[in-house]
């Protein structure tokens, strides 16, 4: 039951805070902040401690996973689904990230959400999110994973639309929800395909969606076919469609930039550190299945690289501090999928971890800036904030250098590993795309940093008046995360630099074949590529510095010179417009003209509902004659029926 407590504690927090929020709302009382803080932050922290106590043996080298069978969830015919928890090295890493970063962000939220009217509600949602996310990573079967998957989707929706009085924000929430549904349909189809494949051959008590069971049946899956395509390809492709939705990959990434409508800590926790990486986790968890589907892996790699480059390009011209970070997230997720696609699962997960640290740090830093600027998010109206926000700018700089891939910060190792694996696995084009994305990353991040924190202040007089450094509980989280993003990379110090590549060995994901394949390249090549990427990053930083050192006039002039390209980028390649024209409008038209007026109004409302209602009313008026309120007559009917039954019995 130890593992269950990791999940139950945040759930308890969610229930308590949710009840508190509801009851306070009904009684029109103020929420008790102390209690909300204590429950909302304390319980995840305890969950983190429990997770740590369970995870330390794994970190020290234990291999045997912990299994906990909670209860029989669904048992229909030969289909058995157990609610069981499963903790191995991968989920240990995830649980520690979720609870650890989660606790820090909860702590940060105390300061950030201070004075908000939905304070208790916010913490209830956030705790519920942690619960769902923990179910996602701790579940020992695909359905439990899916439960968590949907749960985090729900929480994401609730938190993006947290300030639902603002229509745009509410719609951003809906957009996220609907786009995610599209992905989830794919995910469900994948589960169904898997179930259809495994169920006929399942034994008496086989738990067919259990990861370990699926792994044991991998031989069967490999040789099977769904229609005329190979089963692993279909299944993994469907699962990957789910992942593109949740992890914001092309073509379903459009919701993530809009998701920045939610409170900034939410963006940090859900839309950067944890939820959006669920797809990566899912692929890492099902590595054995993806390994036997090389076609899917190719698709994943291509989509990952494209997303990385595509998002990086868009990010270069964004002016909203959070939008830049949002596209950056999409781009970094692309890296992770690239890693998955080339079979370097461990490095994808490694990047996931470092990304969790530095992107959370960046988001929280931006949150601190927004907090200080009283809600202003446009970087054109910032500048020179270094003096007012020393700690924020310092941590932000560290995180920026990390994401830019400067050694020895964490992302240098993780990102470089990915690029190296891409190259060494024989995908030079993808490697070039990744490299370009790295260039873009370094450029837009330093553009962001320079415009925000250095140079002349463009802050309005009004905002200047209460410019202030954030309180300690916010900066504490920043500092911790900055330190982590600075040093976490050493967990994966590559062998070529004298390290042991500890994390990859520790996670031990994917088939050994992929590892062996990479070993054919020389160390010299690896060092060379490393040098190239550092050089590219440095060049990008210098470029950003040169361009934006003196404020916005210069860049604006140049933007006007390249108007078509600039427009294309600021309008995000017109993807939203294309979707609107291709998908939304046809569906809307179809619904309005056919489904609503003809089918719903005419057929369902009139013919089916009203007619049947009138028919029943008529029938009732006929039958109600029998109900004459005369008890003896009722008794007589009773006798009659009794005699009838008796007669049937006798004459049979």
């Amino acid at each position, binding site marked *: 039951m130890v593992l269950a407590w990791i999940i139950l504690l945040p759930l308890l927090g969610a229930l308590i805070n949710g009840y508190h929020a509801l009851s306070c709302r009904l009684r029109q009382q103020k929420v008790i902040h102390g209690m909300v803080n204590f429950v909302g932050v304390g319980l995840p922290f305890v969950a983190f401690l429990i997770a740590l106590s369970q995870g330390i043996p794994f970190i020290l080298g234990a291999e045997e996973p912990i299994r906990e069978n909670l209860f029989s969830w669904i048992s229909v015919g030969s289909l058995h689904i157990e609610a069981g928890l499963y903790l191995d090295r991968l989920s240990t890493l995830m649980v520690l990230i979720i609870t650890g970063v989660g606790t820090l962000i909860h702590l940060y939220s105390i300061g950030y959400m201070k004075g908000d009217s939905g304070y208790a509600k916010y913490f209830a949602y956030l705790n519920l999110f942690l619960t769902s996310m923990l179910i996602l990573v701790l579940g020992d079967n695909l359905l439990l994973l899916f439960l968590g998957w949907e749960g985090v989707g729900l929480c994401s929706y609730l938190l993006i639309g947290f300030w639902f009085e603002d229509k745009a924000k509410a719609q951003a929430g809906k957009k996220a929800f609907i786009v995610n549904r599209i992905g989830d349909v794919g995910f469900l189809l994948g589960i169904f395909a898997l179930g259809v494949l495994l169920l006929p051959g399942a034994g008496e008590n086989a738990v067919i969606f259990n990861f370990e069971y699926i792994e044991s049946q991998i031989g069967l899956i490999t040789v099977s076919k769904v229609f005329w395509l190979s089963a692993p390809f279909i299944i993994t492709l469907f699962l990957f469609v789910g992942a593109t939705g949740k992890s914001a990959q092309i073509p379903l990434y459009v919701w993530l930039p809009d998701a920045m409508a939610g409170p900034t800590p939410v963006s940090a926790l859900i839309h950067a550190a944890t939820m959006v990486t669920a797809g990566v986790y899912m692929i890492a968890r099902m590595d054995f299945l993806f390994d036997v589907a090389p076609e899917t892996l190719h698709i994943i790699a291509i989509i990952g690289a494209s997303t990385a480059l595509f998002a990086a390009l868009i990010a270069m011209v964004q002016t909203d501090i959070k939008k830049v970070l949002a596209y950056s997230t999409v781009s970094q997720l692309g890296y992770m999928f690239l890693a998955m696609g080339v079979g370097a699962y461990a490095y994808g997960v490694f990047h996931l971890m470092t990304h969790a640290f530095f992107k959370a740090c960046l988001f929280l830093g931006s949150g601190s800036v927004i907090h200080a600027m009283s809600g202003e998010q446009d970087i054109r109206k910032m500048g020179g904030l270094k003096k007012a926000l020393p700690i924020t700018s310092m941590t932000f700089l560290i995180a920026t250098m990390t994401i830019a891939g400067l050694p020895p910060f964490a992302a240098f190792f993780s990102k470089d590993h990915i690029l190296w694996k891409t190259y060494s696995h024989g995908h030079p084009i993808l490697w070039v795309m990744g490299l370009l994305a790295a260039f873009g990353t370094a450029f837009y991040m330093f553009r962001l940093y320079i415009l925000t924190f250095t140079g002349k202040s463009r802050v309005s007089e009004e905002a200047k008046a209460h410019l202030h450094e954030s309180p300690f509980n916010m900066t504490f989280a920043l500092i911790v995360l900055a330190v982590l993003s600075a040093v976490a990379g050493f967990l994966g110090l590559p062998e070529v630099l004298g390290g042991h590549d500890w994390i990859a060995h520790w996670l031990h994901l994917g088939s050994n074949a992929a590892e062996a394949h990479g070993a054919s390249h020389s160390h010299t090549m690896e060092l060379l590529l490393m040098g190239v990427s550092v050089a590219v990053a440095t060049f990008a930083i210098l470029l950003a510095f040169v361009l934006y050192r003196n404020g916005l006039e210069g860049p604006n002039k140049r933007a006007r010179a390249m108007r078509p390209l600039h427009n294309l980028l600021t309008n995000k390649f017109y993807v939203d417009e294309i979707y609107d024209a291709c998908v939304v409008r046809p569906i809307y038209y179809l619904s309005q003209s056919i489904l609503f007026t003809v089918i719903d109004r005419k057929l369902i409302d009139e013919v089916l509902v009203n007619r049947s209602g009138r028919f029943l009313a008529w029938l009732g008026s006929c039958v109600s004659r029998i109900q*004459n309120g005369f008890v*003896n007559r009722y008794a007589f009917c009773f006798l009659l029926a009794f005699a009838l039954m008796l007669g049937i019995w006798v004459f049979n």
Partner: protein
Amino acid sequence: MSITHYLTLAIALFSIGLIGVVLRRNLLVAFMSIELMLNGANLSFIAFSRYLGDMQGQMAAFFIVILAAAEAAVGLAIIVLLFRRQGSVQSSVFQNLKDKVGV
């Protein structure tokens, strides 16, 4: 005496009770007829208990008696209430629940 005799008597009591319920409009008498039916059932339980040499039937009868007591308490209270409202215990008086369309 074989069990059939006892059961025949039980059936007779039950049938008489049922006819009473249908026939009589005096709620009190109808109620007593229900008691008759219960007694018929009780007798069959006890007869079977003896027939099978198993006390379970007697226990069932015992609980039926308890049930009858509870039923009588509540039922008679309702009859008193009805009498207070309408000044009658004739079931034909209480037709408030009939549907307006019918009759």
